[in-house]
């Protein structure tokens, strides 16, 4: 009875291996060039790990070692579990992309995958908004410095006097500099985010995911493999989805329910007036101060874009992604410590 059962097990194992051998063909049929398809790499990594396990099983058979055979057997289940998880990931990816495509056309400015939408949104934010604010504020602080540094000098019979009448313009210099710094660092933030999206779009799944599948198939490297798979899925799917979700939140809340409809408008265009160092009349200056400091149509839209759209939403995306990575890694057999990365974020 026991022998009969063992025989069936072997037949089942052989059939399973034969079925697995068909997987590369399936990958080829979906993507003609296996060298450019992450699905192909993943199947290849899976096949290599199954091959190594088969060798382990054969070694166990040769040495008549039950331990080796049981180990190969258990690890094969782990490899199959990995394949199932990757299959699940592919399905979720397809579902998310197909379900969110119509929304992405609005959020990202183009239809396509979640990643395409997030990339288009991020590039748009950089090019059309934050870069413009940055160059605008840069011009303002330069002009302000130029005008406020004027000092008049009069002399008569050796006696002279230096009058620094324009220096009162410096009263807004600190505030403008602070705004300029904030916008510049928001831009750095978005550039770093564009790097994450860029590598997710090009190499993340072709490099880290197959490595993860391969490593996860063996007991001694399961944690590393699980961590790699979790990082790949997190940054490929969760992160861009969070970027778009964050944008949607901001769009929904900022203009409809609050009284700050002008937040989403560009800041008022102001320019630094020309200062005459011999004319102490300050009526022109007062108009300038008023437009910079008193009128909230200048600073508040800038701060809204910097603090809410750039800094807060980036932190939100990173935090959610890292939390998801940590949870996924636990299911994939890895206990990872992400607090270091959270601090970096």
């Amino acid at each position, binding site marked *: 009875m026991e022998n009969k059962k063992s025989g069936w097990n072997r037949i089942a194992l052989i059939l399973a291996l034969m079925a697995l051998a068909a997987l590369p063909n399936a990958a080829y049929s979906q993507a003609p060039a296996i060298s450019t398809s992450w699905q192909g790499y993943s199947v290849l990594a899976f096949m290599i790990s199954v091959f190594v396990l088969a060798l382990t099983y054969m070694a166990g058979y040769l040495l008549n070692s039950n331990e080796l055979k049981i180990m190969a057997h258990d690890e094969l289940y782990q490899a199959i579990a990995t394949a199932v998880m990757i299959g699940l990931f592919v399905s979720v990816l397809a579902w998310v992309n197909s379900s969110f495509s119509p929304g992405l056309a609005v959020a990202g400015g183009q239809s396509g995958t979640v990643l395409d939408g997030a990339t288009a949104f991020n590039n748009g934010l950089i090019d059309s908004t934050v870069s413009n604010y940055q160059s605008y504020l840069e011009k303002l602080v330069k002009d302000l410095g130029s005008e406020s540094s004027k000092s008049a000098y009069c002399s008569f019979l050796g006696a002279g006097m230096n009058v620094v009448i324009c220096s009162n313009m410096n009263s807004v210099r600190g505030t403008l500099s602070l705004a300029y710094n904030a916008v510049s660092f928001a831009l750095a933030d978005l550039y770093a985010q564009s790097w994450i999206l860029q590598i997710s779009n090009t190499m993340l799944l072709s490099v880290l995911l197959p490595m993860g599948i391969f490593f996860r198939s063996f007991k001694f490297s399961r944690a590393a493999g699980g961590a790699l798979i979790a990082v790949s899925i997190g940054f490929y799917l969760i992160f861009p989805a969070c970027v778009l979700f964050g944008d949607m939140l901001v769009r929904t809340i900022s203009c409809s329910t609050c009284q700050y409809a002008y937040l989403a408008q560009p800041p008022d265009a102001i320019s630094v007036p020309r200062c005459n160092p011999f004319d102490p009349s300050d009526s022109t200056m007062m108009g300038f101060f008023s437009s910079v400091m008193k009128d909230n149509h200048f600073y508040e839209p800038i701060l809204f874009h910097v603090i809410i759209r750039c800094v807060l939403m980036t932190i939100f995306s990173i935090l959610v992604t890292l939390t998801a990575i940590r949870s996924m890694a636990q299911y994939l057999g890895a206990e990872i410590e992400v607090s270091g990365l959270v601090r*970096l974020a």
Partner: protein
Amino acid sequence: MIGRRQILYFMVMALMPLGFTFAQSSSYCQVQDLTSLTMLSGLAVVASAFFIALGYMLGEILQNPKLLVWAKIEMGQLAVSALIVILIVAGLDVFACNMHFSDVEQFTGVTSAQIDSLNIPGSANLVDASRAYATWLVGFNHDVLVKIRYNIGRIELRAGTSMWNCGSDTGGFISCLVGGPGYSQSKYSGEYSIEGMLSSLLNTTTASYLSAIFILFTLNFLTNGLFLYFLPLGIMLRSLPFMRGFGGALIALVLVMYIGYPVMLMADMFLWYPSYTVMHVDTKLGGALDETAPLGGGLGVVGAIMAGPPSYDSTPDMIFLSATAFFVTDFLLAINFIVLAAAAKSLSHMIGDEIDISRLAQMV
């Protein structure tokens, strides 16, 4: 009648010198002292076996069953340690030393044109290729640092420049000739604000530069045998009472740092470097800067006055370069350590005490 366990034991013992010879023949990626390391590992096995044999003899003399059992268990554990060493040496040989850069290139589908500027020969092994990448990374961070510093210097020059206006604003050109009234102006003094922002970028990039140096030096220290001597030490400790866990942890650390670390660095390179040109990093970085060239050229101060204050590079470009340096050095390094910490933790748990190298990641 020889049992299966004895056959397995003899096979391990027969394979052990083979494994050591294997490592010696490949000269472990130019590490000169690997020969002595493998000898030390072998010596550690022999010494441990001798120590255990002494224990066994003592057990026989004293007719102490506890000592006899201990010696038998430790002999089995010694065989396990020897097997681990063989696997580590073989792993180092296959993954770190004999896997060529061109093979990995082919596997990832990255065309050589994308990666050519790193100047890594296709025949380079994984350790050499990751070292070449780490060296390049230090150079890249340094270039970004120099660019920002150079522009801070330029802005400092510009912002400090003041001029005397005595023309149309103050009664015409004649007033300049008779020393009449005028006003002074520091036309570029507003750029002190830009300088402040660039100084913050300089701080961030300096941190990235230090991280890049940390990567390179760690790799250099590793390949020159920093932790390799933990291997024989681990084998010895695994055979001592109450020290098996610690010995196993040391062996796990060697495995993770010697195979995992270069592999993750290579993965970093293949992750981001193909986008180097696509993201216009090369264009934004520009050519090498000559920091020693005088501002006014051959004419000195006169030339400097005639040329006017030097202009500075685009600030969004510098922000982008600083963000790139941070991302490719600090962010990816942090991810590397997350993966390595997970691997070290589970591996050491499997063969010994749990170790936690996540502190290292936090330090980074």
